[in-house]
């Protein structure tokens, strides 16, 4: 399992690096993603009950969630397609930025750019699941918790007698674009905000995949069995700055969860540097191939702007997903 997690963390990192390279080579207008959050997002993706409908888990993620989707088995090349805004981009048909996935057949709600609105929407899928098997998972950053929508989720998820099976996750990288955490918060721990609502809460080291796995598992089991909300704050890193707008260059002053985990695995004799390098080389080559393929794919046609404004009355979700 640890090795599986490591391999996915590595692949997720290489995927983000490929997207950054594509941006820098002019194969995309904007990059934003999750390098530095792999140790948390990979376990999350592996622990999700994947499927469609209320008996599986709903995911309301944000633009740093590529690792979670990758761990769930999303086709890697689709991230590249969205980066290159091709007509083949299955997430948005070349309309949205990189990192804005939508996978209905797996209950992954469309990722949208506005910060924190997913917290106001997640209460709805969670409400629909009160008497079902699945749970709803919603994730956002630390700065975004200042938006009223974060409080909306706290209020609506904890109403006595109407508690929601909602796992609220805050990935705290201590930044909102350029603004440091300190100076913007009165809370010592963001997770403390759940306490007044009688919620279970935890603040964890999101750079340690073993702790992340254990804590996520426990939290998800609690929400799944108790049908009550849980607020988790995970401390993570932001390894390439906020986005391409800030250069997307590797920063050296933050913990790299991948190298840290590799060191651990080496110490335990579970991994060798050589093996790790070989894996990295393999994924790098694979994604390079994929990026070449994507470059050949068509751009959306001008008239396509008129597609998908309204679903027609015969619209059936299932069929639509069948197609994909």
């Amino acid at each position, binding site marked *: 399992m640890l090795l599986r997690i490591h391999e996915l963390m590595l692949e997720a990192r290489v995927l983000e690096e490929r997207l950054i390279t594509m941006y820098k080579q002019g194969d995309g207008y904007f990059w934003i993603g999750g390098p530095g959050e792999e140790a948390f997002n990979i376990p999350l993706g592996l622990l999700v009950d994947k499927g469609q*409908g*209320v008996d599986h888990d*709903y995911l309301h993620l944000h633009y740093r969630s590529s690792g979670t989707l990758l761990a769930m088995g999303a086709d890697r090349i689709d991230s590249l397609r969205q980066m290159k805004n091709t007509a083949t*981009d*299955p*997430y*948005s*048909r070349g*309309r*949205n930025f990189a990192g*804005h996935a*939508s*996978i*209905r057949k797996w209950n992954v*709600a*469309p990722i*949208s750019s*506005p910060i924190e*609105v997913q*917290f*106001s*929407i*997640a*209460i*709805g*899928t*969670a*409400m*629909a*699941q009160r008497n079902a098997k699945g749970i*709803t998972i919603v994730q956002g950053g630390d700065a975004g918790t200042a938006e*009223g*929508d974060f409080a*909306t989720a706290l*209020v*609506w998820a904890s*109403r006595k007698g109407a508690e929601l099976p909602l796992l609220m996750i805050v990935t705290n990288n201590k930044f909102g674009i350029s603004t440091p955490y300190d100076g913007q918060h009165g809370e010592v721990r963001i997770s403390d905000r759940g306490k007044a609502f009688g919620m279970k809460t935890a603040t964890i080291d999101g750079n340690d995949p073993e702790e992340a796995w254990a804590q996520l598992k426990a939290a998800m089991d609690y929400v799944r069995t108790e049908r009550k909300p849980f607020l988790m704050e995970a401390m993570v890193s932001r390894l390439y700055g906020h986005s391409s707008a800030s250069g997307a260059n590797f920063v050296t002053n933050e913990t790299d969860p991948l190298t840290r985990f590799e060191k651990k695995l080496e110490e335990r004799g579970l991994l060798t540097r050589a093996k790790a390098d070989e894996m990295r080389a393999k994924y790098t080559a694979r994604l390079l191939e994929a990026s070449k393929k994507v470059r050949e794919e068509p751009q959306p046609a001008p008239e396509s702007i008129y*597609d*998908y*404004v*309204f*679903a*027609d*009355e015969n*619209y059936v*979700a299932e069929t*639509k*997903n069948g197609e*994909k």
Partner: protein
Amino acid sequence: MATMVQAIRMALHVGEERLGVTDIFGEDVGPPLGGVFTATQGLKTTWNSPLDERGIVGMAIGLALAGRCPVAEIQFCDYAFNTIDLLKIAGNTYWSSGGDWNVPMVLMTPVGAGIRGSIYHSHSFDAQATRTPGWKIVMPSTPLDAYGLLLSAIKDPNPVMFLKPKALLRQKGPKGEVIPGEPGDDKALSKLIDAPLGDRTKWKPEWPKLEEYFVPIGKAKIARPGRHVTVLTYGRNVPMSVAAADELAGEGIDAEIIDLRSLHPYDWDAIVQSVKKTNRVLCVNEDTEITNFGEHLIRRLVEELFYELHAPPRLLAGKHLPGIGLADNLEHASVPQKESIKAALRELARHEP
């Protein structure tokens, strides 16, 4: 004959029983009150939400994503202006996800002036709504249309906004317009479905055997046929315009009143047909007059029918002011009244090209 609010209640009942409606919710929507206008009394799936409009809209979107069939209410449209970003998301989700996720939800909210609602119970929402792509927008002017439009809204796989003309909620429709299945006697209907005053804990409504009746979204209706001037309007201003037109008949002015019913998509064919006949047009609505939906209709009319117009088309709308004041004088001076509609119609009808 049912009032509009009774018609809405009956439509929601049919929605619950036969069209799969799962959640009718909002502030004070559930027991004991059943809505500040009693629109949701005695229904099965109603519940009270927290006092949080953003949560209400977000909840509705989420329920729709999860395959439920929600009908959410914003208590007054005056209080929907902190949710415009979420309304935009409901409207763009299908498009942004390239057809992956649709959002089948109904949002209903009372709109307009006419009840001395002062600054925060008199807002209109038609201008804001019509500039929110991805939404279908309907607004009835009679109980039967309210019934038929709401059923269509519930069945629609897209977000549909159902704007309730506040001033008409307790009004009945034109003679003879009956909801299929409603008892002929009003008292009987009231006995069946209106909650008693005082303690309601034991009260249960008895619903008449109602038939499904759908008013297609996108189809206008001629509320009053006429030959000289076309009035394009909706909601509260429909009966007002009809009354104005009837009074002008004596002066030899015969106005045609088009009740759009659907603001988006709207019935362009019906509009063109009428304007080609009358060659004169007046748009009437209560929303503020700068960047107003009636201006869109006029813009499109001049683009497409410029040479058919024998008089400059006119807009009669709410004044471009920060609010509608409480005092009679203030409310009357702020939004169209029967007299101002008559004055505008006279001017148009008598205009010499």
